[in-house]
């Protein structure tokens, strides 16, 4: 076997090894260098994998040469390679901006360990996507979660500590629920391999053990996903975490949880059971809509912009859940597309907020007064990211809203489509609040002169803005892969 054949595992191993290396090299700049090289390397691997999957179909990798279902299998299909692409791209870009931002926000003696935890969280997230083994999902989930608790606690405000603790308690309950669910499935089938589970489950689907396992898994992933009303940990954690951590987690962690939900609902249980026999489609639709409307409404009234965008994240997760609840190819396409596109827009917005923190020192609405003249490039990026969040053509956000509305209309659910538009309307309101402050209010008197953010921060921000617009116009790649992924998911057990 050449190195080329080991790509599915290398995408996890490279950041996993980079973690301890960052701590060992100790010097902040060197640790940053190690993390940056490793992140770009795994992005290159993920890109190579995506090309390979599109050309030749699903890749199965036997860890340690043990054939599945006895050994652990790493399995990259279209959905996996698609999510892997965004999960590796975001940290690679975030790390470019991290250099200045981290020096500014984190005590120097902690910086090496910060990058260590960052890479471990990254490795865990990549692992969840790459693996085809149910228990491995739990292990990687805990690797990424434990690292992210540490990352969040490094925020400057002391409330970062309490919000990290809150997240730790809720995250551990969620992960333990997932562990119980996997245990029940193992009890009935005697296997942990997802492919194997999907083959063996139909024979025992009609038992209470499987139903209980299903419920535990859904609630557990729901907690990790911050699905309304299990989202209580998210706003605080995103608000008080260091800027780059918020950008990284907002764009990847919840997306990977959506991936896990798709994988278990469609890949393991099969959507016939998960969304038709069990009443989960109605439950998810109601929770999704409730999430969109309440979280958007709360976002409108926030003064702290980071918290506003955190609530907006909860609302955006509602759109993904809604797409899944439709249980139709169009719905799944919308959900997978939104995983990708939402990562792009929240990446822009939180990184830009990081730049504002770097120059101004805070991100409450007051700090935004007159910002359009003080930091024109950063503010322009925030506006474009906000437009994508609302779903204005020609941005990536428009594409997902389009497919979502299409999916609801397909099933004649026009009230749901109207509520989706209402959610977008509320997004207009809270994005407008920012625009108004930045462009129509004068710079406060006596404010210190600030310069535009450094180019090392502007570069990743504008690359992401470019991606937002590019994927809003050239939809072949994203929609093509999402359609392929949806067909694979829905066709697994027709």
């Amino acid at each position: 076997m050449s190195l080329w054949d080991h790509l599915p595992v290398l995408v996890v191993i490279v950041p996993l090894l980079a973690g301890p290396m960052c701590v060992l090299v100790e010097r902040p700049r060197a640790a940053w260098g190690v993390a940056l090289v490793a992140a770009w390397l795994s992005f290159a691997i993920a890109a190579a994998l995506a090309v390979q999957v599109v050309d030749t179909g699903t890749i199965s990798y036997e860890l340690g040469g043990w054939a599945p279902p006895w050994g652990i299998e790493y399995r990259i299909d279209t959905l996996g390679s698609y999510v892997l692409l965004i999960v590796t791209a975001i940290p690679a870009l975030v790390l470019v901006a991290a250099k200045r931002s981290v020096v500014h926000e984190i005590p120097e003696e902690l910086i090496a360990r910060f990058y260590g935890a960052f890479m471990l969280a990254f490795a865990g997230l990549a692992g969840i996507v790459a693996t085809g083994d149910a228990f491995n999902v739990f292990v990687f989930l805990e690797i990424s979660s434990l690292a992210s608790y540490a990352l969040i606690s490094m925020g400057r405000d002391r409330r970062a500590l309490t919000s990290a603790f809150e997240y730790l308690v809720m995250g551990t309950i969620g992960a333990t629920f997932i562990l119980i669910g996997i245990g029940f499935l193992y009890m009935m089938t005697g296997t942990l391999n997802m492919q194997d589970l999907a083959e063996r489950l139909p024979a025992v689907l009609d038992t209470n053990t499987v139903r209980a396992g299903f419920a535990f898994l859904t609630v557990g992933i729901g907690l990790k996903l911050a699905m309304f009303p299990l989202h209580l940990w998210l706003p605080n954690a995103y608000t008080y975490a260091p800027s780059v951590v918020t950008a990284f987690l907002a764009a990847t962690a919840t997306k990977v949880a959506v991936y896990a939900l798709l994988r278990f609902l469609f890949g393991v249980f099969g959507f016939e059971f998960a969304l038709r026999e069990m009443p989960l489609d109605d439950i998810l639709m109601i929770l999704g809509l409730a999430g969109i409307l309440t979280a958007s409404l709360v976002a409108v009234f926030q003064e702290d912009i980071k918290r506003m965008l955190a609530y907006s994240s909860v609302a955006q997760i509602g759109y993904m859940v809604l797409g899944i609840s439709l249980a139709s190819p169009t719905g799944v396409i919308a959900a997978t597309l939104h995983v990708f596109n939402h990562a792009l827009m929240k990446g822009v917005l939180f990184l830009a907020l990081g730049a504002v923190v770097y120059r101004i020192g805070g991100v409450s609405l007051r700090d935004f007064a007159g910002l359009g003249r003080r930091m024109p490039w950063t503010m322009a990026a925030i506006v474009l990211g906000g437009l994508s969040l609302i779903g204005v053509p020609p941005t990536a956000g428009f594409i997902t809203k389009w497919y979502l509305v299409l999916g609801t209309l397909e099933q004649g659910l026009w009230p749901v489509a109207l509520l989706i538009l209402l959610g977008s309307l509320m997004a207009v309101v809270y994005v407008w609040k920012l625009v108004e402050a930045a462009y129509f209010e004068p710079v406060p008197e006596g404010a210190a002169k600030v310069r535009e953010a450094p180019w090392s921060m502007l570069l990743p921000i504008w690359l992401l803005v470019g991606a937002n617009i590019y994927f809003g116009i050239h939809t072949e790649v994203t929609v093509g892969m999402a359609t392929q992924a949806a067909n694979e998911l829905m066709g697994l057990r027709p």
Partner: protein
Amino acid sequence: MNLLPGVFNYLVVVFLMMAGFYVVIAHGNLVKKLVGLGLFQASVFILYITMGNLAGGQAPIVAEDLTLYSSPLPHVLILTAIVVGVATTAVGLALVVRIHEAYGSVEEDEIHAKDLADDMPMQQPDPADKAGDGE
């Protein structure tokens, strides 16, 4: 009587799980919350180990005339889960130490009260307060 041991273990699992969960929810003390969380996780360990057991089964070691043995896989899985549990507790306790340094308390309501007290003055005298927490 033969059935009881199997069911008994599951009853213990449910009891421990709910007890742990209750402690997590009901207690305001952060250390006690972690204890509850540990209890909650430990119940799942017992669940896994119980499901691997077989009535009359023996340790899965290669030996002659050994036909009935317990499944070793759940034990191995739970070794991993125990490590995860230890790591979670360690991170949690480290956070509690930091919280105690920052707030001087590990009681949830006292911490909330201090956060609220922090928020109050921030709303009125803007510039003075901002000079304090900005760079």
